[in-house]
C-alpha cells in the first residue's frame, strides 16, 4: 500500500469533514494510505500572504519539515493548501537563502527541511498514481446517467504550476468522472473562481461569482457539481440561499466532493463518506446508487428463470 503524508487542512476538522472521510475511505479501497502529518498547522490561506509573504512560507515549511521526517510526499485535498504548500516547496528548493532563513525559524520547533519532498493534490494522486484503470476496477455502481459538472476552481490549476497539467484546458476531472460511470458535462466556468475569501471581504462580489458559476452549470443541466476543494464546496453550496435572496434567482444545485462520488460508485457506505451532512442532498446520485443493486438482482432472477 502506497503511503502519503496527508495534510488535511483546517476545514477538514470543520465544514469539510465529509471530504476528509471520503478521501481516506476511497483511498483505502484503492490501496492508498494517507498518514496525517503530526501536529500540522494552518497553511496560511490567503490572509498570511496579505500580511507577510515570508511568514506565509514559514507556516508551510513547518508542515513540509514534519512530513520529511517520514520521507513521504505530501498530499493536500484543498486547492488553497495545495497551492501554498506547492509554492513554498518550490521556493525552498530553488532559493538557498530562503531555505537558510526559514530553517533558522524552524529550529525553534526542532525542525529542518532539506527540500526532498513533492507536494501533490489529492485528485492528482487518484488520477495519476492510482490511475483511472484501477479506479474503474473498483466501481460497483456506475453513476450512469448522472450529469456531473466538474469544478476545478482556480488554485488547483493556477498559478505557475509545473506539475505537468494543462492550466488552460485540463481534462483529468472529466476523465475521472467518466471512469466512475458518470456523464461529465462541459461548461465554460469550470476554471473560474468561486469567490474564495471574498465571501468575507466583499460579500456582494463573491455572491455574484457564485451566481455566475451556478448559472453556468445549470445551463448545461448538471445534476450535481463536483469539487476538489472545501472552500469551493462551501461557497457554492452553503451560499445558494444568499445568492437567491440577493439576485432573485432560484438555484438549488447539490455540490459534493469528487471523493464522495467515487466512494458511492465503489459501493462504500454513505455514512462513511459523510453523505447526509450536505445542505442540498445530491438526490440524483443517491437514487442512481440505490437503484443499481435492485437492477442487478432483477437481471439475475431473469437469468435464473431462463437457464
Amino acid at each position: 500500500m502506497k503511503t502519503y503524508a496527508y495534510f488535511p487542512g483546517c476545514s477538514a476538522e470543520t465544514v469539510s469533514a465529509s471530504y476528509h472521510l471520503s478521501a481516506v475511505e476511497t483511498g483505502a479501497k484503492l490501496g492508498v494510505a494517507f498518514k496525517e502529518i503530526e501536529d500540522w498547522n494552518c497553511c496560511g490561506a490567503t490572509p498570511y500572504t496579505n500580511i507577510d509573504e515570508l511568514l506565509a512560507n514559514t507556516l508551510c515549511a513547518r508542515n513540509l519539515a514534519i512530513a520529511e521526517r517520514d520521507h513521504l510526499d505530501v498530499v493536500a485535498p484543498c486547492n488553497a493548501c495545495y497551492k501554498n504548500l506547492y509554492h513554498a516547496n518550490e521556493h525552498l528548493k530553488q532559493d538557498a537563502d530562503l531555505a537558510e532563513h526559514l530553517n533558522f525559524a524552524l529550529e525553534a520547533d526542532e525542525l529542518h527541511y532539506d527540500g526532498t519532498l513533492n507536494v501533490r493534490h489529492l485528485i492528482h494522486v487518484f488520477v495519476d498514481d492510482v490511475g483511472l484503470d484501477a479506479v474503474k476496477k473498483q466501481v460497483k455502481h456506475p453513476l450512469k446517467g448522472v450529469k456531473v459538472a466538474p469544478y476545478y476552481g482556480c488554485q488547483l490549476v493556477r498559478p505557475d504550476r509545473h506539475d505537468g497539467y494543462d492550466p488552460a484546458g485540463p481534462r483529468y476531472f472529466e476523465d475521472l468522472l467518466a471512469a466512475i460511470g458518470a456523464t461529465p458535462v462541459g461548461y465554460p466556468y469550470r476554471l473560474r473562481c468561486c469567490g474564495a475569501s471574498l465571501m468575507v471581504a466583499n460579500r456582494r462580489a463573491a455572491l455574484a461569482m457564485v451566481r455566475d458559476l451556478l448559472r453556468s452549470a445549470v445551463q448545461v443541466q448538471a445534476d450535481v457539481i463536483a469539487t476538489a476543494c472545501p472552500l469551493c464546496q462551501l461557497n457554492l453550496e452553503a451560499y445558494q440561499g444568499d445568492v437567491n435572496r440577493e439576485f432573485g434567482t432560484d438555484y438549488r444545485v447539490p455540490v459534493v466532493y469528487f471523493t464522495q462520488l467515487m466512494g458511492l460508485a465503489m459501493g462504500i457506505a454513505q455514512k462513511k463518506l459523510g453523505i447526509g451532512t450536505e445542505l442540498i442532498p445530491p438526490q440524483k446520485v443517491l437514487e442512481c446508487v440505490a437503484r443499481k443493486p435492485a437492477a442487478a438482482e432483477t437481471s439475475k432472477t431473469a437469468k435464473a428463470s431462463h437457464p
Partner: protein
Amino acid sequence: METATSRVPSFADEITNEMYATGTRGLNCCIQCATCSAACPAVEFMDHTPRRLIAMINAGLRDEVLDSNSYWTCASCYACSEACPKGIKPSDLMYVLKRYSIWKNRYRSDLVGPEFSRLFVRTIARTGKSYEPGYAPAFIFEGGVKGMFREMQFGMKLLAKGRIPLLPSRIKRTENFRKMLSRIIPLDGIA
C-alpha cells in the same frame, strides 16, 4: 570628486521593487492591453480595473490607488497572471498593494479585508489552526448587528449538520510555533 546622487523612490518604484522581490516583472513593461481586466471575475466590483490601477501607479497617483477598493477586491484566483502577455502577475501586484497598505496603515476604512486578514493571522499565530466562528468580529464590522445575525443563522445551518465544532482546535506545540514565527517577524505587532 564623485557626488552621490540620491532620489527618493517614487510610489511606482516602491511597488515595482516589491514586485521584483516576489518574483514577478515590474509594472514598467505593462502595455495597457487590459487582458488582466478582461480575465478578472471580480472586476465589476472594483473602483478601478487592474489595467487602470497599473496606469495609475505608473502615473504616481498614490492616494487614489491606496484609497481604492480594487486590491482588496482581488480573490487571488490568478486568472490575470496566467493571461498577461508581458509576464506581469497582476494578482501578485494586488498582494503587494495589500501588504503595502497594511504596513502604511493606509486603506479605505469601510473594507473588511484588512481587518479580516489581521484577525486570521492573529488566530493562527495563537492556535496554529483556523476556526471559522472566530472571525465573527469581521462580520460585525461589515454588516453591524444585522450582519452578525445573518452569519449566526448561516452558522446554525452548518452546526445542525455537524459541520461546525463548538470549540476551536489547536496544535500541540504552540509555544515552539510562536517562537518560530517570531524568528521571522516580531509578533507583538500582529498577535
